[in-house]
């Protein structure tokens, strides 16, 4: 019983840590996007489909994300689904970190 509780506690700690890391990463992604263009409303989930981010801004955001997290995002990942929202961008970055 005590062992189970210990295991559960460890899982909770790990989960919280992951959540915290995720939140931090999301904050960083948001900071990168705001740095590129602060006029865009980044709470939206149709940033590309709705035309709020044009191709020039998209390129700037993607290259800044690569710089910030020191990753390489291949071209096949540059698609609307991955840049339509801050959450989608965070998930993309997580894949390559």
């Amino acid at each position, binding site marked *: 019983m005590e062992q189970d509780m210990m295991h559960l506690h460890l899982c909770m700690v790990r989960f919280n840590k992951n959540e915290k890391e995720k939140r931090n990463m999301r904050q960083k992604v948001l900071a990168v996007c705001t740095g590129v263009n602060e006029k865009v409303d980044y709470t939206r989930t149709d940033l590309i489909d709705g035309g709020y981010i044009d*191709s*020039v801004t*998209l*390129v*700037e955001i*993607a*290259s800044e994300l*690569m*710089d910030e997290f020191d990753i*390489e*995002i291949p*071209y*096949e990942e*540059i*698609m609307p689904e991955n840049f339509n929202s801050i959450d989608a961008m965070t998930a993309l970055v997580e*894949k*390559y970190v």
Partner: protein
Amino acid sequence: MELLEVIGNGDSFWKSILSTKMQYNSLLFFVFFLLFLCVFFLCRDGKKKQICILTGNIIFYVWAGWQPMLIVLGSGLIAFFTTLKIEKIYSRYEGEKEELSPKEQVTLFNGYKKKARKHLILAMVLLFGVWILVKLGKLLGFATVTTFAAMYEKTGVIVPLGISYYTLSTVGYILDVYWRKAAPTHNFVEFFSVMTYFPHIVQGPISKYSDLIEKFRKIPKFDFERVCFGFQLMFWGYIKKMVIADRILLYTKGVFAAPQEFAGVEIFIAVILCVVQLYADFSGCMDIVRGISQIMGIELAENFRQPFFSKSATEFWTRWHITLSAWTKEYIYLPIAMNPKFLKFTKKMKKNGKPWLSSFLKGMVPLIAVWLFTGLWHGTGLDYIVWGLYWCLLMTLSKETAFIWDKLYKKIGVDTQRRYYKLFQCVRTYFVFAIGRMFTVAGSLQGCALLWKQMFAESRLWVLSDGTFYTYGLDEKDCFVVLIGIIAMFIVDVLHEKGKRIRKTVAAQPLPVRWICYYGMIFAIVILGVYGAGYDASAFVYGAF
């Protein structure tokens, strides 16, 4: 009587039919299309419809010569088998990636991607190779021939119909499979019927094959309203092409063929009208082909969205020849801008204390590549390269100087949200396009320089008042028809811009009103269309690319 004599003499009748060009604006095409539709609507099953379309494509294409068709078939086979090979390589990755961490998966995938790249490069070299050979042949002034024998004897060049369009779509399709953005089809009949689909092969729209394949798989049943809408769109396209564009051409072709004989207002009007002519010609053709396709139940991509209501050069190219802009963005601009080596290079530059140069290169290199390609796609002469660079420069300047204009407008109190300012922006777009068109419309840069020189040589305003203007190809009635045509096009564009659906509105009217509209369109084409003696359907401007 003459017609009966010709029909009576069977051989010459068929010879004359077979030697007639099957262009979208020819009577021959219209007859072919009506016969095709009868068979098409008799096919109930989707597969039969696909085979019917493929047969129609082959008849349409072979009419211009069966040997160019072999080149298209070769290109189709290259694309089809390359995509299958790439898919096979990636399927091995799918089998091995299980139980690997995301990072290991990326490394494994990169290995397979490298293998797939070899096939991609080979296919691209072959497809673009044929296209470049054709372009070079045209640049070097070789005669256009339709047989391989004539190619060797006369040192001519075979120009397969629509090569500039299907090459882009085919390369795009292979790249989509390579980037795993689309799954390839395993059915060659399906692929080849999409590739050679007769409404889009001659001058676009440059379709995404993966999207079109999906539409081919779900061809809807006969729908009376859809068929009516399709015919209406077709007829509107014919009006734009045959009543407006071809009529304006009567004047502009004379001016641009011998600019030294014209001056001042004559050149100015020709430049202004050649923009309308190009718009009516190209968008008219798009309406015809989209109408044809709509009748069959296959929606083709939109190529124009009221381009002259654009507020800037950048916006203009999101509304004019949309499918070409989308293609260059997806397959040239973004891959270059996102290339890891290029990004590393600009990053290094930034670290070395040259942030301005780094940001400039990041923006300019992909843009120059796009515009050089767009220029060369339209034509191989120096005039087209300059035309491409002109647009590149304009877009860069408008982006980089935007903050200066904003400050200036605030200082002098110009409200950029007011209607007069928006109108100014639209007029500016029109003139920016007209100036760009001057680079290529006279056939060379020398011709363009001559146009500018003659425009300011003398005013010649008197030609407008003493009737001389009416002797240049457009008489008083023609000018009136052109004016009415331009107003009609403008009204239609305004209504579309406001989101109004004109055909739906017409369909909701009482029967007599509807039929007045339909007959009005048909009579406009028959009576006001430009035919002339010994009428031979005049070619579409963008068909030459």
